[in-house]
């Protein structure tokens, strides 16, 4: 079963020597293949997750790297011509050309598999006068842990923030507002695809059915885009993205599953994260014979940035980032600034590593310095800070994120997502992703969509500026912890617990 925290453990292998062997085996088995194709199988859509990319992700996991090996992000100084870019790129051993770059906004993504250490690539480029910044293509991770042990009490979280009375004021928002979930995706089709996978003895083709969440009306899913797996329909093979989206906007008052906060707004699935199944399918298609570690996966900076810009360009007014990592990234910060400049409010998870040293997580750390961006910490049913929720001077607001130390599964966040029993990596060979169930997750990933949902309601009500949305959420928060008071912040809870009703009610002349 998945472990808590953003850093995945390669439990099956463990030692570095064994890991090196794995990498060698993988490299040799893949050879120089460039297409996701084994004998008798052709990808139904052009693959974004190429074999070399998949191998890089596996290598990153194996070596516990925080970046995608061989990938670096570079921004050239203003006014640098292509000739100048070439001059800078000549500093690398592989001597790439500017045409080898893939552009995410004004940031070029360079893939150089001859040098897997992206920190070296970045350092070499940073030394060039034409370069404004260069950084490895860091990997971020969704900030949640699933657990669905069975039927128990549910959605204490919505009662804790007085959602029923908030819905009296604004029942679900408006369908003119789009909330983007930049995550593992929300399945946007009902279709069966054939993939290659390892069955323990051989690579075989499996038919993998996908279905849309019945608690999302299909008309509400707009602009779905996959940036990381393939150039085809968005498929959630992990469940995190769907769970997050359910908190924001699961259908409500339909006698089905759970309730979502802004249940009338449109949802934009933006897939930027890879999990076990995407990588297993890609590796098996390339001829890799074996199972990948169950906890493998990540969300590359380049795809996150691309996804954020895409969402902003397509009219999303709320962007949910339930992901994070320990590495700062100018690319990510600039993408978020781009989004707020386009009028989008951005909610970001604080991170779940409080008991692992409480590191500063990014991009949450950027929130405090950016208007219209809020970092979100988690509380449990008692409204005390969840044990895992990171703290710090950059924490701005708290919301229910679940805490299984307060009543087990009852203390977690229940929403509708793909049934995990259909795709457990350690026990399933041929997964299915067409059945949905109410599942309990906990994490700052779950807290963040509460704030995103409230933001969507505020925007529906006419608060059109992301900075104003932040002001409304901040000024209406219920103070928690110490020091506390209206407008007073502390490192454990930020400005306090989000209060949707108070935010939507606004103020009169004197109160």
């Amino acid at each position, binding site marked *: 079963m998945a472990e808590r925290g953003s850093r995945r453990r390669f439990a099956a292998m463990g030692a570095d020597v064994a890991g090196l062997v794995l990498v060698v085996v993988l490299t040799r088995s893949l050879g120089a293949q460039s297409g996701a194709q084994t004998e008798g199988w052709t990808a139904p859509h052009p693959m974004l997750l190429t074999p070399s990319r998949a191998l890089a992700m596996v290598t990153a996991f194996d070596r516990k790297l925080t970046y995608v090996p061989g990938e670096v992000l570079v921004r050239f100084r203003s006014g640098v011509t292509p000739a100048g870019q070439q001059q800078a790129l000549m500093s690398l051993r592989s001597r790439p050309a500017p045409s080898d770059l893939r552009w995410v906004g004004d940031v070029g993504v360079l893939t150089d598999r001859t040098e897997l250490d992206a920190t070296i690539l970045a350092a070499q480029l940073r030394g060039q006068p034409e370069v404004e910044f260069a950084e490895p293509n860091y990997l971020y991770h969704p900030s949640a842990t699933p657990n669905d042990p069975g039927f128990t009490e549910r959605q204490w979280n919505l009662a804790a923030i007085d959602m029923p009375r908030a819905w009296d004021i604004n029942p679900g928002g408006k369908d003119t507002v789009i909330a983007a979930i930049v995550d593992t995706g929300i399945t946007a089709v009902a279709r069966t695809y054939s993939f290659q996978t390892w069955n323990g003895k051989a690579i075989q083709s499996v038919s993998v059915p996908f279905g849309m969440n019945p608690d999302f009306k299909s008309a509400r899913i707009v602009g779905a885009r996959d940036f990381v797996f393939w150039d085809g329909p968005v498929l959630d093979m992990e469940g995190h993205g769907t769970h997050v989206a359910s908190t924001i906007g699961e259908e409500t008052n339909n006698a089905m599953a759970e309730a979502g906060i802004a249940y009338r707004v449109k949802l934009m699935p933006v897939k930027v994260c890879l999990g076990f199944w995407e990588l297993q399918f890609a590796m098996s298609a390339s001829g890799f014979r074996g199972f990948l570690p169950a906890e493998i996966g990540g969300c590359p900076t380049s795809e996150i940035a691309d996804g954020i810009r895409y969402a902003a360009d397509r009219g999303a007014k709320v962007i949910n980032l339930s992901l994070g990592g320990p590495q700062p990234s100018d690319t990510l910060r600039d993408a978020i600034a781009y989004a707020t400049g386009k009028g989008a409010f951005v909610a970001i998870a604080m991170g779940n590593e409080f008991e692992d040293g409480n590191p500063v997580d990014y991009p949450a750390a950027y929130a405090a310095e950016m208007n219209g961006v809020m970092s979100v910490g988690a509380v449990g049913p008692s409204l005390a800070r969840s044990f895992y929720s990171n703290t710090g001077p950059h924490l701005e607001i708290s919301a229910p994120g679940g805490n299984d130390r307060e009543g087990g599964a009852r203390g977690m966040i229940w929403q509708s997502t793909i049934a995990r029993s259909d795709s457990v990596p350690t026990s399933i060979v041929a997964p299915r992703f067409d059945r949905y169930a109410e599942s309990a997750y906990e994490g700052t990933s779950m807290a963040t969509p509460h704030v995103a949902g409230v933001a969507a309601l505020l925007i529906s009500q*006419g608060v059109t500026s992301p900075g104003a949305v932040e*002001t409304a959420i901040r000024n209406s928060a219920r103070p928690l912890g110490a020091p506390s008071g209206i407008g007073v912040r502390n490192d454990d809870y930020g400005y306090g617990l989000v209060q949707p009703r108070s935010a939507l*009610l*606004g*103020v*009169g*002349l*004197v*109160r």
Partner: protein
Amino acid sequence: MHLNRALLRIAPWIVWALAGTAASASAQTNVRVTRDQATIWTADFKDTAAIVPAGTILTVVGRRGEWYEVRMPTAIGGRGWVLKSNVDTNTSKPRAGLATSAPRKLGIVGVGQFGYVRFAAEQSFNAILGASGGGFYGGGAEVRVTNAFVSASIERFEKTGQRILVADGEVFQLGIPDTIRVMPITVSVGWRMPRERATPYVGGGVGRILYREQASFTEASENVHSQYSSYHMLGGVEFRNEWVASAFEVQYTRAPHTIGVGGASAAFQETNLGGLVARIKVLVGR
């Protein structure tokens, strides 16, 4: 909103009435008899209509040569003609040596009033109501002792706007109806300065402002019921016609440090619930 429309509809009539009152005051000039036992003649000048003492105030309704046609005192009734030389048009300054009638020692008038208020907390009211003020109505009473007066009144202003969010000085309306009611209760003292055609006056006083605010979706405990102290200065001019008079009055009220702790008034740092009032009064009595 309804009150404003009502005010707009009747405003022309008000102006006409004021003008009429003022006009009749000039057309129907009052004169004071300066000759004791002056004779007022009938229209054909053949009979004596009345003999009146010096100081009697007569209302001129016409003129012919050396004669004024006057309306005689109520007790006598009717009309007649008096020599211009037997009367003085300056009814406030009796000629030296001649008997004059003393000003009325005690009078009580009832007052109905309406007008427009512009609140000092302009930005706050404008953000909520879409305007910095609006129309109001009210009434009261006034006791006059010679030229001094004491008055008490109560007025009502009520308007519905929207709850808002204020962020960096920008106002976002949230579509939630919010009703504000302001009811000043005031006591004023002042001094009247009767003139031939009109009576200017000035005064000042204190008051209590009853403030009510409630919105849709709020609970009783979230609504506002407050009272604030205030003080004011006022000035106006009255035009009298027998038992009925009209007046135009301007009042400046201050209620400092009454608002500005929360809500829009805190966002705009406005703490004064007073403002500037222009009102029209209709007074009945003497």
